[in-house]
């Protein structure tokens, strides 16, 4: 299969007074899986529906390969799409569902059946061709939907919250399976999801969307480790956000800053933007990057309010003097520190992510 790139060049969409999509440009490389991640109403679904051809963008153009498809109806864009509720045709058998796209293209029956069999084998459902849709479990329906979307050898695969209706365990195993199939076929894919874990697990790049625009785009580790704004930091996992004042630079990008609230305490962070002494700033530290040390050591003093056992890790909820919102720490420690005890928090300077730098 030849991987085809997808290009969105300045597409926008308004519904009445509401601008659902601000002019948005995005280049997806051939064979890449890109996730559009964001809360509901952020414009990710509108973007997907514009690519599919269900919504006509007000401005801009959509390119599949080097072909402008902006004006083409959905059936002539050569796409595969998996819907959240699978949208399998209840009046057709599993095999007929998979072969539907080929039937619409006028493929001969024998070839259609052969191809449907092959696709069903790919999703490990080869025995289910003659079953009715309602006889399948949710996970099986999901795989049929994927087989149906891929049967016509589409140029682009669109996944609209494809695993949203599955339970947690099944969702995790399907994430890997879907990802493996996508890689093997090398099909350019767009995944729309509000589940950050799904976006991070499945995609090559993640575009975080908010209020009709892309806030940050990059590889999962980059987005998670270096969120550009507080919104991204909060939306992808948990982030402990601190307000501080820059004190002095201590070498290439390494700054000492004084935490606001209570008594100012100096800590270190790695700056991603130019800073000057005295500047107000906010930075975030991921809960798993915070280390708890003995109260006699150095670091930020905190008091453990609560400890929650989470299976593979422990979640600590800590109070810091002069701060209203609690600090979260994820720890792999085998013995839990008791609630009520005092600790000191430390982090590596490059784990403190500078979010906003004000005047």
């Amino acid at each position, binding site marked *: 299969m030849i991987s085809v790139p997808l290009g969105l060049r300045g597409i926008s969409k308004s519904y009445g007074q509401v601008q659902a999509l601000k002019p948005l440009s995005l280049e997806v490389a051939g064979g890449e899986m890109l996730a559009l991640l964001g809360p509901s109403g952020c414009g990710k679904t509108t973007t997907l529906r514009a690519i*599919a*051809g*269900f919504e006509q963008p007000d401005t801009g153009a959509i390119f599949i390969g080097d072909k402008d498809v902006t004006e083409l*109806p*959905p*059936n*002539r*864009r050569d*796409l*595969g*799409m998996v*819907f959240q*509720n699978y*949208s399998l*045709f*209840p*009046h057709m058998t599993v095999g007929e569902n998979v072969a*539907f*796209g080929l039937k*619409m*293209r006028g493929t001969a029956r024998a070839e259609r059946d052969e191809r449907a069999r092959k696709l069903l084998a790919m999703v490990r459902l080869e025995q289910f061709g003659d079953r*009715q849709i*309602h006889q399948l479990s949710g996970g099986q329906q999901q795989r049929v939907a994927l087989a*149906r*979307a891929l049967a*016509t050898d589409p140029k682009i695969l*669109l996944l609209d919250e494809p695993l949203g209706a599955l339970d947690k365990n099944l969702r995790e195993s399907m994430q890997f399976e879907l990802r493996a199939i996508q890689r093997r076929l090398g099909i350019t894919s767009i995944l729309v999801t509000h589940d950050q874990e799904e976006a991070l697990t499945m995609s090559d790049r993640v575009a975080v969307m908010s209020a009709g625009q892309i806030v940050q785009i990059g590889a999962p580790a980059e987005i998670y480790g270096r969120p550009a704004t507080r919104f991204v930091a909060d939306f992808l996992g948990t982030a402990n956000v601190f307000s501080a004042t820059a004190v002095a630079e201590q070498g290439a990008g390494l700054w000492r800053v004084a935490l606001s609230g209570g008594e100012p305490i100096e800590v270190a962070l790695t700056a991603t933007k130019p800073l000057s002494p005295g500047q107000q700033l906010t930075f975030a530290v991921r809960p798993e990057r915070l280390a708890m040390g003995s109260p006699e050591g150095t670091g930020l003093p905190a008091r453990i309010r609560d400890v929650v056992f989470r299976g593979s890790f422990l979640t600590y909820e800590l109070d810091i003097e002069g701060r209203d919102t609690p600090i979260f720490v994820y720890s792999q420690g085998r013995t839990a520190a008791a609630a009520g005890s005092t600790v000191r928090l430390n982090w590596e300077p490059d784990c403190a992510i500078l979010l906003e730098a004000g005047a």
Partner: protein
Amino acid sequence: MTAVASIAAPAEGAPRKRGRFRLASPLWAAPAIIFLLAFLIVPLSANLIRSVTLGEAAQQPFAYYQKLLFDAYYSGIFLNTFKVSLITTVCTLIVGYPVAYFMVRYAGRWNGLILFCLIAPLLTSIIMRTFGWRVLLARRGLLNVWLTDLGLIDRPIDILNDPIIVYIGLIHVMVPFMVLSITAVLQGIDVRLEESARVLGAGRWQAFRSVTLPLSLDGIATGCTLVFVITNGSFLTMLLLGGGKVQTLSLLIYQQFNLTQDVGFAATMGNVLLIAAMACVALQGRFLKRKGIKE
């Protein structure tokens, strides 16, 4: 559902001897059963007996049934009744389906208005409605005046004396039944099914034909059965608009009862209509059941 369960549960748990007031008692069906017995089962049974005992049937019990089915004149009317109903059903379906589809898929907030326009004719008296058509379609009625003014016709067309007016009147009355039956089913069909068909390469029409239409067959079956059965027995429209041009069983029953006063024969025809209606409903029930198993 939860409300019913929570009320029923203590009733089941409580021993009967306490004589607690139970909501789920079969006794509550009694008024309906008595009413149906007195005003449906008894008269229908009497009608059945009448059809095999009165008049000509006194000598030979099935004389009237034979007459209706084998006498060329009567069997002609018998078949004509079904022909009229069938044509009306098909025309109603053709008129009603697009309306239903539009209402469900595109009307949005206009849905209520369209629904009102559909039901409004049902709220006016059938006699008013029927004479309305006579006024519109009369020799010097609105339609003829317009067509003449537009120069489309030289002489007024005589619709009033053409059987077509009966069909116009019937379709007018029947369309709401069809539309409501179909919208009920269409509303349950996810738009995304059509969208997935579109992404898979189906054009608008193909997507409709291969997904929405087959999934709405239930509604079509219900609507058609309803229209067919009601048209079979419809009387006033036939009488007031047909004026003898279209002869159907219901008109014949009226004649036999009021003019010829052959009550036995009228009862026979009534029974035949009833059996036809029951057959239609049974057929539709089978159709729905078969589909039900498939789903």
